[in-house]
């Protein structure tokens, strides 16, 4: 009786009807907007007008185009990912690991006492990624956890940043692979030193790579529809940023990195990749804003280390990114991948400062500094005792996502940064792994470290490590001749 009276009263009141109508209208508009966004995303990946236009452009015979005209049609990316001014860790998440003697039930009971919004366990590393509750801050929870005797360690979920400045196309523009010297056909047309390159053409006579050796690119994802990558990417990978199985690149960096490692080679178009026949496994751990969290990298390392597809498995992981802080969970994930026989390659960073993590984990990672077309160390390249080798990092041409390519441009870009140096080394490691699969990770790391061309100060130094990599010295049989 009371309910009937109440409803009659409400319906007599026109305000209620108006509010309900407004809510419905708002929901409808929101739904429409989501539908449009979803359709746009799909179109961008498969057949956006930009993509189609560029596909047509890309199919043309660009060999007849003059070098100057061609250069104008290649994008130049001038963003150098250096240290940001804000907080260097997530304001929502922390990484915590409990003492191993505690059961999962006990650790979760302890965790719940801190009233987290959510948490999940990273397998193999056995550390929790904890999203702090609305009533507290990361700092407060961290402080409380760090004073808990059951906690082995509790760390902020640090931020990662990209170590590159991509730029883009064609072998004659890839001085990093084969430097003829003289005036180079790259932006600014600088004069290069002959053979200031990784000497890959000589190495390819002996090793072109094994398709079952995968190089995991943990980055912004990869444009797996790119004509120079479509046959080289083994799967759509995993997106740790959006937590799905589609590591499509919405930023450009990962596609550029993947192209340096494994762009389809000898296919009459585009560029050549270092690891001619090896394939790419994309893992997206950096968002469109160029930033990512440590926990995504940690999870991606474990995922990549465990990944298999038929006879194919990951032999090399490239990390053209880094953060300022050490992190025990990150170190543990690196160790997990290392112990599984995977060569870990990371960029040193572009701040002209100390080597970033994970590259600074010297025991597990090859830390790669950046050099230029004259075998000089790039001024942006980070340095320190952890630097192992250097590789070309200035105006490196590689693939660029179709969806991000502007009309009139080719889906390639020139870019600079240690992010571009690391994939040269990752491709090199994949070739060694292909040629000599019985070698241990440590042996492959030593081969890469001990075979470069010494640049900079004589002997190993903190800027170039042992020098700029020389793939030929490591992969071409060394001929002992009578003297």
């Amino acid at each position, binding site marked *: 009786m009371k309910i009937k009276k109440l409803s009659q009263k409400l319906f007599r009141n026109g305000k209620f009807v108006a509010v309900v109508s407004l809510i419905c209208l708002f929901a409808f508009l929101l739904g429409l907007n989501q539908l449009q966004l979803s359709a746009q995303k799909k179109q961008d990946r498969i057949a956006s007008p930009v993509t189609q236009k560029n596909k047509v452009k890309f199919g043309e015979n660009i060999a007849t185009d003059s070098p100057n005209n061609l250069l104008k049609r290649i994008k130049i990316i001038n963003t150098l990912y250096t240290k940001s001014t804000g907080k260097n860790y997530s304001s929502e998440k922390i990484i915590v690991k409990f003492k191993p003697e505690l059961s999962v039930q006990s650790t979760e009971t302890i965790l719940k006492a801190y009233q987290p919004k959510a948490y999940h366990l990273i397998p193999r590393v056995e550390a929790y990624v904890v999203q702090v509750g609305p009533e507290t801050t990361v700092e407060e929870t961290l402080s409380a956890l760090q004073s808990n005797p059951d906690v082995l360690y509790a760390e902020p979920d640090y931020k990662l940043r990209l170590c590159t400045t991509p730029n883009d196309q064609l072998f004659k523009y890839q001085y990093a692979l084969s430097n003829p010297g003289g005036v180079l056909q790259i932006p600014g047309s600088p004069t290069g030193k002959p053979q200031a390159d990784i000497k890959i053409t000589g190495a390819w006579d002996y090793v072109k790579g094994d398709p079952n050796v995968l190089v995991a690119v943990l980055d912004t994802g990869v444009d797996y529809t790119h004509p120079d990558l479509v046959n080289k990417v083994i799967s759509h990978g995993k997106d740790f940023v959006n937590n799905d199985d589609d590591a499509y690149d919405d930023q450009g960096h990962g596609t550029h990195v993947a192209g340096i490692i494994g762009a389809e080679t000898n296919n009459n178009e585009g560029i050549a990749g270092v690891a001619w026949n090896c394939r790419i496994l994309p893992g997206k751990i950096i968002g469109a804003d160029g930033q990512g969290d440590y926990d995504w990298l940690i999870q991606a390392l474990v995922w990549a280390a465990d990944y298999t597809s038929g006879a194919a498995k990951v032999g090399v992981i490239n990390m053209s990114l880094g953060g300022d802080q050490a992190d025990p969970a990150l170190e543990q994930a690196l160790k997990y991948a290392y112990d599984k026989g995977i060569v870990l390659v990371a960029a040193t960073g572009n701040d002209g400062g100390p080597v970033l993590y994970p590259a600074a984990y010297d025991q597990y990672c090859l830390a790669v500094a950046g050099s230029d077309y004259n075998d000089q160390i790039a001024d942006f390249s980070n340095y320190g005792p952890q630097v192992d080798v250097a590789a070309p990092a200035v105006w490196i041409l590689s693939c660029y996502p179709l969806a991000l390519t502007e009309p009139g441009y080719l889906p390639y870009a020139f870019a600079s940064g240690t992010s571009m140096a690391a994939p040269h080394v990752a491709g090199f490691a994949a070739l060694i792994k292909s040629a000599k699969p019985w070698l241990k990770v440590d042996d492959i790391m030593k*081969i890469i470290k001990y075979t470069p061309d010494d640049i900079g100060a004589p002997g190993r130094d903190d800027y170039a490590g042992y020098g700029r990599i020389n793939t030929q010295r490591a992969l071409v049989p060394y*001929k002992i001749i009578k003297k």
Partner: protein
Amino acid sequence: MLPKLKKGKKSSWLSLFILLLFTIFASQALSAQSSNQNKTRWEMGLSAGLFDRGVKAGSNELTLKSSNLLLEARATNLAGWFDLDIFAGINSSKLNGALFDQLPVTIDYEAGGISGLIFGGKISKAFFQTSNFKFGLLADFTSYIGFQKKYTLSDFVVPAEVKAEPDWAQASAGIFVTYDGFVDNQPFLEISFSKLWGTFKMSETIQDLAAEEDKSLKDAGPISIALGWNINLSKDIVFVPKLRVYTGSKTAISGGLSLLYTF
């Protein structure tokens, strides 16, 4: 660090056979020594030879080129029963083209001969004789032990070197025929089943990266045919040129000259 390559299947049965023959001949000789002592003729001298033989080193085929200078002692009709030839000397063995692709940095060996010691022996016994021809059995064994040789890998940014160390052995058993129709010289023909085996060891050290690979050596073909001539230059001096051809390789040929003094 690396799985060592298995050595090639050695012809141990052949060695045993030769040893057996040797033992039989020696025991026969000793038993007959007293009655036939006067008939033994001793010769001693120098011998130089070149030796090319096709060998398989893992998956690649190459030619073992060897040259040697030997001190040789020959006893004819030892104990009235068989002939014995023993030798020892220095040898240079060249295994150019051996590819050590299991090492961290692959090594292509093209550095020529490696010196070493060589020694061995040969026994032969004639069993059947016509007016001018003599037929018999023979067996021989040769062993070469190469000295370790170091090479610096000069282009590396860190200290780098390799050490090469070859060794090989060869054993043969077969028949011979000699022609005794000439007054002061005696041509002969030998047809043998000959096996060669050995290893070519390469150790690589690049800073703290060290590895070793043993390349097993095996003959490319087991049959050898030799034509030689015992030429008596004087009453006491014998000159023996000899040419041998092996099956299984175009370059499988060897030749030697011996100058022996009879006393």
